[in-house]
């Protein structure tokens, strides 16, 4: 997507074209939907885990089959995301 944007920025007339605007709108929207879906899932997982720690669920949860915490969505490059970016001069 970023390469697409870079190429599109180089042609201002093309960027202003109606069809091009609709296309880039579609692309942006699709990417956003995917990322928001992942975000929503992770938010719900967090809420679930937090709720299980509150009283009374903390005592009763395991009785009803909710012993384990839910896990967040994993990314392929989770390790890289966790690591701080290296800066060199």
């Amino acid at each position, binding site marked *: 997507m970023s390469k697409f944007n870079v190429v599109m920025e180089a042609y*201002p*007339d093309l*960027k*202003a*074209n*109606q069809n091009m*605007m*609709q296309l880039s*709108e*579609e692309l*942006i*929207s699709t990417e*956003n*939907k995917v990322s*928001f*879906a992942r*975000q*929503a899932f992770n*938010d*719900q997982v967090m809420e679930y885990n937090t709720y299980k720690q509150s009283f009374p669920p903390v005592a009763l949860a395991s009785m009803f089959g909710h012993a384990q915490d839910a896990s967040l969505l994993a990314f392929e490059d989770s390790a890289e995301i966790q690591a701080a970016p290296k800066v060199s001069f």
Partner: protein
Amino acid sequence: MNFFKAQDHARQSTTKLVVLFSLAVLSLIILTNLLAMFAFGFVNTEQLTAASTQRQFDWETFLLIGSAVFVTILFGSFYKILSLGGSGAKVAEMMDAELIIDGTKDIHKQTVLNVVEEMAIASGIPVPPVYLLHEDSINAFAAGNSPSNAVIGVTRGTIEKLSRDELQGVIAHEFSHILNGDMRLNIKLIGILHGILLLGIIGYYLLRFGGSSRNSKDNGGIVALALGLVVIGYGGTFFGNIIKAAVNRQREFLADASAVQFTRNPDGIAGALKRIGADAVGSTLQNPNSVEISHALFSEGIQRSFINLFATHPPLEKRIRSIEPNWDGKFEYKPIIEEPIKEASHSQSQRAEKTGPLIAGASLLNSGAFVDRIGQLNASQIEYAQQILNQLPTEIKQAAHNPFSVRALIYFLVLDTDSDMRRQQLQYLESAADEGVYGETVKLVNEFPDLSVEHRLPLLDISLSTLRQLSKQQYRLFKNNLNALVAMDSKIQLFEWTLQKILFHHLDAVFGQTIKQESKPLNLIQTQNACAVILSLLVYSGKQVGMSHEAIFAAAKEKLGDLNIELLPATEISLTKVNDSLDQLAKLTPLKKPLLLKACAKIIVADQQISATEIEMFRAIADLIDCPMPPLVV
């Protein structure tokens, strides 16, 4: 901004305020009770101090009156809740909003639909319908008491003035209203307040119509009761509204924090708030019904004085600061709309009115500007094209669109001006061409003796599309006839040559008569001989006044970089050579073609006089190397 913490804080504040509200209602009920008892003389003021008042002050009466008041309030509340609640679509209709249909051509509307869908995914509720308010201000609302019958409304100003991120922030804010049940809460509060108001209304009517035909003791009592009810009712509503506004403000903070949670981008909603602050109309709605949904809007819909107890929204500055603590306090207006393709200036379109020969101003051509016109279109050129079309005689236009008579038209265009030659050509056609076509040609010859120069190439363009409809056999016959006609006078004129080249260049490809060679694009060095031929051709074809041929050629050669070419003597430029050169140049790499065309342009403008012939030649060359150039408009 720690949005989870901010949300917790807002929720706790709301709970406190709601508790306060309930206490207020309770105390009102008690007050009303006391009032009622007092009014009907149950409690005499002298007897208050005496112990024997206990007899009158019994719980039964208290409870009776208490329940009467309670039921009144409840009745009023339910009535209001039922009228306000239900589907959000009703609210949208009340505001005269227009439903946005999916798949709309308007890019702004489609964007807002996409954003709403994204936010629905982010917040985990079904996608609500989106309504459009026809207002210039930046505002939005969410209506409906549950996620399943919720709607979102936005103003036209919102979808046009905000960037995509800011729009996302606004929509996320509205979604959090839906998700956190703010509408339901508000409707309950409004309902209860209406119930209290009902007490006041009862008191008001008692005041007006009660106490007419009763004995004096009760009369006084009823008036007192009525007065008391009015005070409690309207006073209660007044203070209740203040509390309700405070609750609203807390919910707005909660919604802002939730918006940041959904979008994970505080700049979006902060940017939207800043834009509202910077905008002239801000978020004020013109529709008078907006008072009813003032609590559901994104930002204040009514102009209020600076600090107002009844404000449903916190001040803009406070909201921005809670999201962006480091804000510098300035509302700057930043335009976000990109400039669309620039329209042709007014003076340029005025100049298009002239229909004289295509003589260009030297300044325009010296810059080679018209080479940049290749592949581009602007308003003045379209106007010029429309003019040309209007000037063409109707029969000729019709002939160009009919596959039958278009052949006649092309034959007509190549007929010689010399009448003897013309007769010869027509004789040939009589024998060789399709019968009807010959008749048509004769008709055209008789009706239209000549056609002006600038009409010929456009006519050719029109005819090309019609000629594609011929069958293979018809095309072969047509091609043979055309070649024969042109060769008949044993000298080829520029126009005839141009016409032949253009026609066959396009149509041969259509009818599969060329073997498409997927060859590697050539660069200028490899085609330098061809360039020399074409440039020389151009140099000799114009009546170069005041400059020698060599000088013009040298000037043009500059444009091509350093190629080792020289002006060819006129005798060496044969037709076959030109044809071959053009074929080769068509294989030039696309990035080098403009250079060649600029060199050609240099030749044309060198003598500061451009004739229609030169322009036609240039256009033909451009067309034959697959760089279509629009007609030159000055």
